[in-house]
C-alpha cells in the first residue's frame, strides 16, 4: 500500500458580536424561545429591504486586516439561491467572486516542536447566518426557528493549494484563528454553541502524486478536539475507499462525535446551482482608504506578537508565553502582576501552576480568580525578599484563593512567618542527634544522604525554614561532630 498524504482546506464561520442582526434591528443573541427575534426583513416578507449593519462591516474589515489581507475597496454582495428552508427568502445574502471584503491574507501557526508555518487565506467575507431546523421525531415534519436568520456571519477560507497538511495543523489553525477573533472582539469563539464553526475539507493522495484527491466537507465539529479527530477519521476513510478500488465522492459529511464516525449528509447544490448574482437590494460597499488605515492603526496587539513580546520583555519560556496569551485577559493579568516584581518568571509559574489549578477547580478563568494581580505580585515579593518560603507560599496561595485575604494577612494569621535561624538551629541539632547512622554515611562521603536530613528539618519546621539556612546549619552542626 502506498503512503498517503493529507491536505486540508478550512472554511470557518464566525457569528459576529453585534447587538443587532446583519440587515435589521432584531437582537443578535444565542438561545431564547423560537421565532421571538424576527421582523419583516429577516423573515423575508415582501416589500422589506435589507440595510447594512455598520459594526458588522467594521468587524470583518478589522479581521481581514489582522489576517494580513488586502481589502477590496469596492466590495459586492450576492444572492446564493437554494431550496433548503433555513432562510425564508429562498437565498442567502453572501459574497461571491473576487470582491469579498478581504482577499489574500495569512496567519501563522506554531507547532508543538516550536516551528511556525504560514497558512494562506484566500478570502474573508460577510454573509448572513441561517435559521435553525428543529427535527422532532415522529412528527413527520420539521420546524423552523428564524431567530438566527440574518445574524451577521463572517466566512474565512484558506487558500488553494492547501498549506495545511495534517489534522493537527488544522486544529492549530482553528485554535489560532479563534484566539485572533477573540482578541479582536469580533466573535465569542464558542464552538460548542456554534457561534464559531470549523468546516475542514480533507483530501488524500499517494505521496508523490501531483494532483490533489477528491475532498469531502466535514460538518458538526463542535470542539477543536473533534476537528482533529474528524479529519483523522475522514482521511483514513478516504484511504480505505481508494485502497479497496473505490472513488471518494465529493460530498458533505456530518461528524458524530460520540460514535467517532462521519456520515453522508443531504445532497447539496453544486456551485452553478446556487445561481449567484449581485444582490440588487444592496449597493456595493466602497471603502475609504483613510478609514481603513485608521482601523489598522487601532488593531490590538495580536496573540503572536504579544507572545513574542512577553518572551522578550519578561524572559519567559515560549511554552509559558503561549499559555498566557491564549486569552487576552490572562496576559493582561500577568503584566499587571509582573509590575514591580523582579522574578517575573516566578509570577508566570505561580499563575500557570497553583493559581491555574485552583481557578480550574472552581470553574474560573485565571483572570477571574479571587486573587487580584497586585495580591499575587505581593506574594511573589514576599518570597523574593525571603520573608516567606516557596513551600509556605503553596499553602498561602490556597488560603488567599479561598478567603480573598492578602499574603501578609494569611502569613500573620496562620503563624507562617519564616523561622528564625535560632529556631532552625534547634531543629537541626535535634535531627542530627536523632539520625546518627545517616550522619555517619554523609561523613563517609555519601553526600546524597544530606537530602534526607534537609527533608526532616523542613518537615519539623512545617516548611517555614529557609532552605539556605537549613543547608548551612546542617553542615555546621555535622562539622561539630
Amino acid at each position, binding site marked *: 500500500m502506498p503512503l498517503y498524504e493529507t491536505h486540508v482546506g478550512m472554511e470557518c464561520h464566525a457569528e459576529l458580536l453585534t447587538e443587532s442582526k446583519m440587515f435589521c434591528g432584531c437582537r443578535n443573541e444565542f438561545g431564547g424561545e423560537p421565532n421571538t427575534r424576527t421582523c419583516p426583513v429577516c423573515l423575508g416578507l415582501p416589500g422589506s429591504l435589507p440595510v447594512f449593519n455598520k459594526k458588522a462591516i467594521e468587524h470583518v474589515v478589522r479581521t481581514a486586516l489582522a489576517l494580513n489581507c488586502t481589502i477590496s475597496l469596492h466590495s459586492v454582495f450576492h444572492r446564493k439561491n437554494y431550496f433548503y428552508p433555513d432562510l425564508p427568502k429562498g437565498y442567502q445574502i453572501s459574497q461571491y467572486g473576487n470582491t469579498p471584503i478581504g482577499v489574500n491574507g495569512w496567519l501563522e501557526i506554531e507547532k508543538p516542536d516550536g516551528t511556525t508555518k504560514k497558512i494562506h487565506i484566500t478570502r474573508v467575507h460577510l454573509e448572513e447566518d441561517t435559521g435553525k431546523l428543529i427535527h422532532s421525531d415522529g412528527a413527520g*415534519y420539521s420546524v*423552523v426557528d428564524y431567530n438566527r436568520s440574518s445574524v451577521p456571519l463572517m466566512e474565512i477560507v484558506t487558500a488553494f493549494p492547501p498549506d495545511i497538511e495534517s489534522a493537527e495543523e488544522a486544529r492549530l489553525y482553528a485554535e489560532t484563528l479563534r484566539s485572533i477573533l477573540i482578541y479582536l472582539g469580533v466573535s465569542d469563539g464558542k464552538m460548542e454553541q456554534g457561534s464559531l464553526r470549523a468546516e475542514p475539507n480533507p483530501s488524500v493522495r499517494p505521496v508523490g502524486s501531483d494532483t490533489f484527491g477528491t475532498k469531502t466537507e466535514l460538518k458538526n465539529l463542535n470542539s477543536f478536539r473533534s476537528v482533529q479527530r474528524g479529519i483523522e477519521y475522514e482521511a483514513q476513510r478516504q484511504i480505505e475507499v481508494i485502497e479497496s478500488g473505490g472513488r471518494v465522492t465529493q460530498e458533505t459529511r456530518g461528524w458524530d462525535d460520540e460514535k467517532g464516525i462521519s456520515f453522508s449528509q443531504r445532497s447539496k447544490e453544486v456551485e452553478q446551482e446556487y445561481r449567484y448574482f449581485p444582490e*440588487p437590494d444592496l*449597493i456595493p460597499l466602497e471603502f475609504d482608504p483613510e478609514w481603513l488605515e485608521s482601523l489598522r492603526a487601532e488593531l490590538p496587539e495580536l496573540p503572536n506578537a504579544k507572545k513574542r513580546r512577553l518572551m522578550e520583555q519578561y524572559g519567559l519560556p515560549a511554552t509559558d508565553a503561549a499559555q498566557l496569551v491564549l486569552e487576552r485577559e490572562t496576559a493582561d493579568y500577568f503584566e499587571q502582576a509582573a509590575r514591580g516584581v523582579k522574578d517575573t518568571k516566578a509570577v508566570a509559574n505561580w499563575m500557570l501552576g497553583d493559581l491555574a489549578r485552583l481557578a480550574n477547580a472552581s470553574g474560573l478563568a485565571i483572570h477571574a480568580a479571587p486573587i487580584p494581580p497586585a495580591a499575587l505580585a505581593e506574594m511573589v515579593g514576599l518570597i523574593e525578599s525571603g520573608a516567606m518560603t516557596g513551600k509556605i507560599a503553596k499553602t498561602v496561595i490556597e488560603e488567599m484563593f479561598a478567603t480573598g485575604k492578602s499574603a501578609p494577612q494569611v502569613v500573620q494569621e496562620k503563624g507562617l512567618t519564616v523561622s528564625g535561624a535560632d529556631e532552625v538551629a534547634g531543629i537541626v541539632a535535634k535531627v542530627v542527634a536523632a539520625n546518627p547512622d545517616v550522619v555517619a554515611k554523609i561523613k563517609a562521603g555519601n553526600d546524597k544522604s544530606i537530602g534526607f536530613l534537609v527533608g526532616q528539618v523542613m518537615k519539623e519546621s512545617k516548611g517555614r525554614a529557609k532552605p539556605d539556612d537549613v543547608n548551612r546549619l546542617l553542615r555546621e552542626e555535622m562539622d561539630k561532630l
Partner: protein
Amino acid sequence: MALTREEVRGVATLARLDLKDNETDRLTHHLNDLLAQFARLQELNTEDVPPTAHAVPVAAALREDVARPSLPREAVMANGPQVDRELGGFIVPQVIGE
C-alpha cells in the same frame, strides 16, 4: 449548452420536486428555451465593461448597530400556512439526513 434531462432531474431533487417523466420532458424543453433567450446576451461585446453590480452610483447606506423590538411571535406565526404552536415554529417538510 443545452440542459439534459439528468440535470433537470438533479435540480428537481434539490427542489424536492417529484417530477413525472412527461413533466421532466416538458420542463427540460422550457428551461432550454429560456436559456437560449439568455444566451443571446453572450453575443454582446463586454470586453471593456467592468462588472456592474448596481446601476446607481451612490454609496451604500449603513445603519448603526442598535437593536430594535422584533415582532410579537403571534403576529409572526400568523403568516405561516402551517405552524407548530407548541414548538413555536413554522412547519416545513422533513429533510432526512441533517
